Every structure is written in C-alpha cells, then in structure tokens.
C-alpha cells in the first residue's frame, strides 16, 4: 500500500498547486502562470495515473473496487476531461474551478475511513472478467489483471460523473459571469469567456457525461445479470443512477428542443450534479443496498 499512498500524497500536492496556479493566472492575468498551471495539472494527471497503476500492482486486480479507488478514478477522469477541454477550446480560466473541485475530492478521499481505503481481495461477486481478455493476457502471466463488465461499468460511470462535475463547475461560473455581465462594467470575471461560451461548454460536458452514464448503467445491468441473475433490482444505487439519468435527459430535451439555455440550463445542471453526489456518496453511506462497497 505504500507506493500508491506516496503517489496519492504527491497528487494531493499537485492538485492543490494547480488550483493555486489557475487562480493566480486568473488574478494576475500572466500568461506564464497559466502555462505553469496547465503543466502542473498534467503532472497531477500522470501522478493520479500512477496511483491507479500502483493500486493495481498492490491489490492484484483492476483498481476499481472500493470507494477510495473510485474517488481516484473520478479525480483522474475529471482531470483528463478538463485537460482535453482546455486543449480543444484554449480556455484556461475555468481551470481554477475544476482544480478546486479536484483538490476537494482529494481531500474527501484522504479523509475516508480506513475500511474504505484498504487493499482488499475481491469478494466472489466482484470477480467478473472477460474470458477473451484473460486468454489474451495469459501468455504474459498477467491474466489476473484482466478486466470485465464490472470494471467497464465503473470506468464508464466515472467518465460520466467527470463530465457532470465539469458541467457543474461551468454552470456555477456561468451564473456568476451572467450576473456580472448583466451588471456591466469592469469586473474580476472579465478573464472568463463570454457567458454564452461557458453555457455551451457546460452543455458539451453533459453531452459527454450522459451517454457514458447510460453505458455505465447498462454495463452494470449486464454484470448484475451474470452475478445475480437479474439485470435490474431497483437497488438504491440503481434507482439513483436512473434518477440522475432522468434529470440529464430532461436537461438535453429541454435544451435541444425547447431552447432552455443559460440560467435555467445551469440550474438543471447543478441539480443534476447534486443528484450525482448523492448517487455516489449519499447512497453509499445513507441507504442500504447491493452497492455497499462503493
């Protein structure tokens, strides 16, 4: 467990620094600070990748089996998604919000009780592997690292969560920016792109998150069908994932066909992410059910 914790500690520092750098870039409007911030979040991404790899090495299976590991995956996916967006759209100002979310997520993960962190062998229900992948990896002696529906399910779901988290950050920025724009005059928010652009970016993030959450739900159903003989059992986690999916489905329909943009879309996106938070943490800690492990 040592190596992954070392990387975890380093990542924590890297995320904190990149949040600071993005904020510095925002405040001082210096280009070099922005470049440094991007570089630092890339370093943080690499370091997060190393946490996952080290975890896999220590536990002897794909690192998606408890709350701590899933938090690291969430942080990883959010960072990767953010960097892709920054690279594609050349907009740095929102990094301050995303990296702050990342730092908070790291903090939350580090404060998890030990039983959610420890490296555990997989219990019988969590052992689902694709045979073709095991066959592929057997010649190299790596068959225990083969993944299956369960890992695919977790991975897809967390890409979805990451998209929603980014959209959530953007929606908050949108609301702040919109307020300052309607007031007029110079403001601290001028460094942000136009509110219209933030709104569109927030929508793009959901347009990534929604299908991935859908695929995550479906692959979870496939696994459940193998493990328990039923693809849907209205377990609280399943139900909440569906609730979240419904909210974002409403968002997409309202936006695409009824032109719900701007403020209303931002509020829906925030509501959606609150549902994600409950789906992810609330259900695990408050409601009983099959997903008790993560």
């Amino acid at each position, binding site marked *: 467990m040592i190596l992954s914790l070392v990387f975890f500690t380093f990542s924590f520092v890297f995320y904190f620094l990149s949040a600071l750098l993005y904020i510095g870039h925002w405040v001082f409007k210096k280009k070099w600070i922005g470049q440094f911030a991007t570089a630092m979040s890339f370093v943080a991404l690499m370091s997060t990748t190393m946490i996952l790899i080290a975890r896999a090495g220590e536990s002897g299976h794909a690192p998606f089996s408890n709350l701590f590991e899933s938090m690291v995956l969430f942080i990883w996916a959010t960072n990767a998604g953010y960097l892709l967006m920054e690279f594609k759209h050349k907009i740095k100002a929102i990094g301050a919000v995303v990296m702050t979310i990342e730092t908070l997520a790291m903090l939350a993960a580090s404060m998890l009780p030990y039983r959610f962190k420890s490296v555990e062998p997989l*219990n019988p229900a969590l*052992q689902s592997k694709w045979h073709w992948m095991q066959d592929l990896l057997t010649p190299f002696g790596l068959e225990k690292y083969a993944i299956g529906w369960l890992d695919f399910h977790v991975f897809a779901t967390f890409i979805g969560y990451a998209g929603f988290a980014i959209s959530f950050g953007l929606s908050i920025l949108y609301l702040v920016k919109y307020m300052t724009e309607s007031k007029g005059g110079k403001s601290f928010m001028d460094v942000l792109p136009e509110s219209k652009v933030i709104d569109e970016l927030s929508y793009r993030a959901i347009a990534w998150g*929604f299908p991935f959450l*859908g*695929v995550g739900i479906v692959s979870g159903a496939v696994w459940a069908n193998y493990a328990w003989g039923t*693809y849907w059992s209205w377990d609280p986690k399943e139900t909440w994932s569906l609730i979240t999916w419904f909210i974002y489905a*409403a968002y997409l*329909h309202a936006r695409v066909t009824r032109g719900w943009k701007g403020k209303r879309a931002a509020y829906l996106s925030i509501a959606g992410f609150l549902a994600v938070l409950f789906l992810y943490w609330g259900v695990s800690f408050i409601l009983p059910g099959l997903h008790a492990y993560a």
Partner: protein
Amino acid sequence: MSGKAWYSVAVSKIWLFFNSLKLTLGVLLTLAIVSILGTVVEQNKTAGEYISAYGEGWTNFIMAASLNDLFHSWWFIALLGALSLNIIVCTFERFPPKWKSLLNHKPDNFDSKIIDRFTTKQTFSLDQSASAVRERVFKAFRKKRFAIIEVPSSNGEHHFYAWKGRIGRLGSDATHISLLLILLGAIVGSFAGYKGFDAVFVGTEMSVKNEDFKLRLDKFWIDYYDTGQIRQYNSVLTVVEDGRDVLTKQIWVNEPLYYKGVRFYQSSYGNAWNRLAEAQLQVKNTKSGLVGEPFKISWKTDKPEPIPGTKYSARLIGYSADFAYDERSNTVFSKSAEANNPAVNLEIYDGEKVISAPWVFLNYPGIFPAIPGADEDLLFVGYRGIMYSGLSINKDPGTNIVWAGTIVMGIGFILAFFVYYRRIWIVVKETGNSSEVRIGGMINKNQFAFDKDMKDVTDLIKSE
C-alpha cells in the same frame, strides 16, 4: 364540432397530448422525484417493519399508495406507460419526415436571404470569377468531407448547399426506440419468465421445473485467499437429458450455466440438513458398559450392513441436522440447516426382518434404546455430511430483447452525441472582376465544432 365525429376529435386531442415535449419533461422529472421516494422508503418490507419505522398512520398511507413496492405499483407503471406513449407518438410524428429527407436530401427553398438569418455566417470577396470560385468552393467542402450540390438559381448568382453528418439525426430516434425495446424486454420478462431457487446435493440430480432436463451436482468447493477470505464458490454441474450427460460446466458467482433458455447461478451453499454421506456408530453393551470400535454405515445402501459383534444389521435411512418432531403429523423435520441436534434414522434388521427404526442422537446417547429387547445399544458418534449448492434459477426470455435494446442504445448514443448534422448555404455573386462569397449555416448541436468548420472552410476557399 365542426363536422368531425367526437371520437376523432378525442383521438387527435390524445395524440396531441402525447406529442408534447412538455409531457416528456414533466414525466421525466416526476419519475425522478417519485423514484427518490422508492429509495428512501425501504421496499418490500412487512407491515410490521413499516409500523415500527414510521408509525401506524404513515404505514396506512404507505400501503394505500403502494410505496412499499413503488416500482411495481400501478401508478409507477402508468408513468412509464405515459413515457412510452410519449416516445411512440413523438417518433411517429418526427421520424417519417426525417427519413424522407434523409433519402432525398435537398435544401428546403434556397433563398439567398436565408444566410442573413444564421448566427454563424461570413461574407468576403475574392478577385476571381464566379466559376473559379465555384471550383474552390467544391474543393474546400469536399476536402472537409462535406457533401455539396449546386442548386439552380434564376438571378445569376451561384447557389450551393453543403451538408455533413446527416445520419446523426437518427441518433435520437435510435435512442428512443432502444428505450422502448428495453421496456418491452422487461414486460416480456415479467410475464414469460420466472425466478426460482433450488438446492442440489453433491452427487444427486435435481429436476428443473417446467423443463425436460435434470441437473446433477458433481462437486462443490470453496476457494480461499491466503488470508483466509473467501475467494470464490464453485459448483460443477452436469445437464442430464434423456438419461445422458449432455453438458458439464463449472459455475461460480458471475459465471452461470446457461441451457435451453434457463440460467443457473451459484447463489449459496451449505451442509445438507436431511441427508449424510455416512454415519459413524459404536455398539455399547448396556450390561457391561463396554463400547466397541467405531464403524461406518453409508447412506441408504441397498442391503443392510452388519453391525459388528452382533447378529443385527442396519441401514441408514434418515438424518436431521436440527432434530424436531411434529406430533400432529407424526413427522420428523429439521428446525434449521444448522447441525444443532443431529440425529440419524436407522433401520435395524434381524436377518431379513426389520425389527425397529430408531432415531439415534449425537448429543443424547442412549435416551431411546436402538434395538428393543437386546443387550446392545447403538451410539451415533460422528458423521460425514453432504454439501449442497444453492442455485438461483432464472428464465427470462425478455433479457435478449433488453440486450438488443442496449445495442441500439449504444448506436443511438454515438449518432446523437458524436455525429453532428451541419448544413451550410453558400451564395457566390460575380461583381465585375471579383466575386462576393456569402456563407452561413447551422449545426444541430456543438456550436464549437461548427465554428471550426466554418473557419476551416472559409480559410480553404480563400487560400486555394
């Protein structure tokens, strides 16, 4: 009633009701909110449990509103039904014209004024003739993998229309149809499928309800990690059909056996409560108090086995792990699957004749004499149990429809979220030595991608 029968008015009103996006939004958000209730109120508990958690008044309400089984209540099903009707009507309204325009794609009324209406547009001039510009336009759009046609015009201008990602328009329909398929699969499953549970003992066969094959458990074992934690439960099952072994498979949690539409899942295990592999007995002389060497007797042998040192022989015909006796029906049963009070039922033979069939207890030696009138008594001192494997049995013909639905959903997602439908109108007008190019268009989603397209295309036209 302007000449229309009341029912056709009613039908068209209902149709209109379901052809509404407001309904979609309303139903989606309602489903989201009531589903929350279904996670807060624990499902399928007994009335007593609700009363102790919520009190009697709330329990009455929970029962009346079916909140105890919310996801199968009539009103939840009705909401799903409304959503399905909504999807069906919307698909009927929107899909046919879309399909038609996909097959026969033409710009709807090319009016050069249309360009002014778009938010994404550009106007620029090139020092070239219209026909030269025409070449550039074609080349630029083809390079960006747009389809492009020239639309005849009557006023001397050149009109072009370009498009890309038409197929993306089908994404929403595919996604909607996939949801209907998944619901259909769930309906088929709830009517034509069944779920069951059965325990099969090692070495025995089990018949499967409604099916003409049997299942034999050859072996059951548990794998452990080095730390002692359970790694996996395994059963080797053989399908027996017409007395022949047709299929043998090792199953474990996550790896069911599938045969003729029925799936068998590893679900539990335990020691049999009503049978043994063998029992260990001793003969005790009640006069002298001497106890003989232990001997074994196997389960339900064809012939009685001799009891050493006596003229008697015995068969092992019953076992109860947690012995209990029901006086009314005069039967023996096991109170639990735990070996709290193990007892064996023996048939004692004197020659060919059965002289008694006593129960002999492990924990209470000698409370009932096993052989009436003899000096010898039998002591039950040990046993070797039989494991059973608990199998969940599931037949759900709807599952395959659900999987088909998920594949359609995947295709729908790709089309809907990652293929964008872009349309661009181009007007080229020759003015003396130069040509004026006006270009504008729209995308169904992802404005960023479109801005980039427009920039790339205009750069290409200007630079070629």
